[in-house]
């Protein structure tokens, strides 16, 4: 059998992927992988990846594999074509083994300790996860959308889920925090979604008509864009404080969900109004003229022509507003509106990092979900005739 050797020039190292792999390796090597505490609030003792046992070794192997894959075009030019898939697999392995490692470290460290002892995720493990995400991103930017790409993404999710279910992550202090706060947790998640949802809904109800009016009357535009822009510059805590004055004057409570929803509505206005306004005003005047000339009424023109053409930018604004409002809703716990911010404030008060995380991590997840959901909506709702930018 004849050997066919493909002679290829040496390619370049994938710098992004290499950075991710090195970040993970260095982070794991020099920073505490997990933190051990004798009880919930004493200062923690840093522990290295050695405490994770074989799982930790696996993480190091996968990170090294990612580095090798990143350098493959330079080291083994013949394998260049396989690089994206190798990176994806290495990233999936890094995610899974990192999750498994922290679980294993918790199990091992807590084996001989008291009920009160806690193990929380350390900076090293966080960096390993960030590094894995960077490798994943580098691979995705090389790879077309295809089934191997989707399959490896699913594999990463499955690996993390398995590690979470069977790898001892239940022993981690953030999970312990959750277990002791479970009923409050879901209550706060519900409150958080209600606050953010109400802010966004009122933002839409107010913002869309304001944007439409702004395209029709100069005066409305100048006032609206000005006011909405100024609101955005007021820090949220200050805005919540300032709201007390008009609310008190109207005989309404200055704390609780009312001021929170008002503040969130005001913050959501800028992205919604500005994007919708720009979207509407960028509609080609010839298109509007043609529509009018064919006998469309103003309402028909708005609904059938201007709105669909402004939709990509408008959805983009709603997406920005949703992410913003989910974040700021954490701060409204400050005026007693509830929500996941309560955990953050309580945790800061008690110097309990894990309680802070119990509030912060779900907020990030909610923001990511809103972001992904609205991107998907944009992909479906926008006409293929104008998808992907220029009209």
């Amino acid at each position: 059998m004849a050997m066919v050797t493909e002679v290829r020039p040496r390619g370049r190292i994938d710098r992004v992927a290499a950075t991710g792999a090195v970040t993970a390796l260095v982070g794991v090597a020099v920073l505490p992988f997990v933190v051990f505490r004798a009880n919930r609030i004493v200062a923690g003792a840093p522990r290295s990846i050695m405490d994770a046992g074989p799982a930790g070794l696996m993480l190091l192997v996968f990170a090294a594999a990612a580095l090798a894959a990143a350098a493959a075009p330079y080291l083994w030019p013949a394998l260049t074509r396989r690089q994206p898939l190798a990176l994806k697999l290495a990233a999936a392995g890094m995610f899974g083994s990192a999750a498994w490692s922290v679980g294993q470290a918790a199990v091992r460290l807590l084996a001989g300790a008291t009920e009160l002892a806690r193990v929380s995720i350390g900076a090293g493990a966080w960096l390993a996860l960030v590094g894995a995400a960077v490798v994943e991103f580098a691979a995705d930017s090389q790879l077309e959308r295809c089934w191997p790409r989707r399959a490896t993404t699913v594999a990463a999710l499955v690996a993390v889920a398995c590690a979470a279910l069977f790898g001892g992550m239940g022993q981690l202090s953030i999970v312990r925090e959750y277990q002791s706060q479970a009923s409050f947790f879901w209550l706060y998640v519900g409150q958080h979604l209600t606050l953010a949802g109400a802010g966004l809904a009122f933002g839409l109800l107010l913002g869309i008509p304001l944007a439409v009016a702004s395209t029709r009357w100069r005066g409305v535009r100048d006032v609206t864009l000005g006011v909405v822009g100024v609101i955005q510059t007021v820090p949220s805590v200050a805005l919540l404080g300032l709201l007390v004055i008009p609310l008190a004057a109207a005989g309404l409570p200055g704390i609780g969900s009312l001021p929170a929803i008002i503040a969130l509505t005001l913050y959501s206005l800028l992205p919604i109004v500005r994007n919708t306004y720009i979207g509407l005003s960028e509609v080609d005047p010839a298109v509007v003229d043609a529509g009018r000339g064919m006998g469309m009424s103003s309402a028909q023109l708005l609904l059938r022509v201007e709105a669909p053409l402004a939709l990509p930018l408008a959805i983009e604004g709603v997406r920005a507003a949703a992410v913003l409002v989910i974040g700021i809703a954490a701060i409204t716990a400050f005026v007693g509106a509830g929500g996941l911010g309560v955990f953050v404030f309580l945790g800061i008060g008690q110097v309990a990092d894990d309680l802070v995380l119990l509030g912060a991590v779900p907020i990030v997840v909610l923001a990511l979900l809103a972001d992904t959901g609205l991107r998907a909506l944009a992909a479906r709702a926008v006409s293929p005739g104008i998808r992907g930018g220029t009209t």
Partner: protein
Amino acid sequence: MIRLEQVTKRYGDAVAVDGLTFEVPEGEVCVLIGPSGCGKTTTLRMINRLIEPTSGHIFVGDRDVMSVTPEELRRGLGYAIQSVGLFPHLSVAENIMTVPKLLKWDRKRMEERVEELLTLVGLPPEEYAGKYPRQLSGGEGQRVGVARALAADPPVLLMDEPFGAVDPLNRERLQTEFARIQRSLRKTVIFVTHDVDEAIRLADHIALMRDGRLQQYATPEEILDHPANKFVHDFMGADRALKRLGRVRVSEAMRTAVPSLSGGRSPQELSTRAACADTRFVYLTDADGRLEGWFDCHAVEIGTTAEDAVTLVDWRDDAVRPDTSLKEALSRMLGHGYRSIAVTDLTGHLLGDVAFSAVEAAMSDSDERMAAAHDAREGAASDEGSVPE
């Protein structure tokens, strides 16, 4: 019928349109022409009330346009503009359905109409109905714009430089198609342009404007032969005989029995098979009769190799259609350096050719016709003496 009576539009102190009065008979094309800023667009847009006149009356049919709502009025007047203004988020079919939808036609009727119209403007429906405007070339976009204006079969079409933004070759094609469509549909059309050749080619009547005032309202022949004043004369240009060729169609001057050969193009074979006795050129076609090129007998005689005697061409670029104007045919001949140019139908089948000499003959013919028409009108015609030649 469209009638304007003393229509004036003022913007502050500036007068965009000044006391305009003319009437376009049913089924005729009136071309509004004049220098940029003379008020053509303003006039057109007053007819469908995109602009409200300061004073005066406009009638479409027997109805004063002010007696109906603007929306109702506009749905009965086709409207096509230079920038086309296709809705980018809607497919070609949906764009064409715009007015039928406003008029609440049923789905089936609209779909049939889309097919009919796309075929009419020369875009195969199965290929174009589902496309989006950004997938169309400039010329295709203009065709869809015209189809959209015709969608609800309005008796009146208002067109503002509809072919102004396309390249000259495509513009000529669009004009030819427009002339063909208009011959069968007989709409009452107001067509704005600043292109004198386009006006002469398409108009039944030309309304020439300057600074918001009507300078002359007459047929192209009349306006070329008896310009009302120096401005009209200068605007229409000096090459009047040439301009008049814009009104003669190739079919009126073409020779139909042309020598041609189909199939087998080996040059040796050709030089023996070609009946070179009485003509210099023999057209070559494929088995279906589609023009593929020609064979130069003369070149063979003077000793060129047979290969060089064969010229292969693309009928889309190197031939004209029967309804192309003679002016266009002439300019193509001059452009290519041909003494004659082949005529094919819309799908490339060879129909005949037009010789340079035939164009010359047509030019003197039309001069004679003009002169005859002029003599007949003798006396009624006015101030030719006052117009410097």
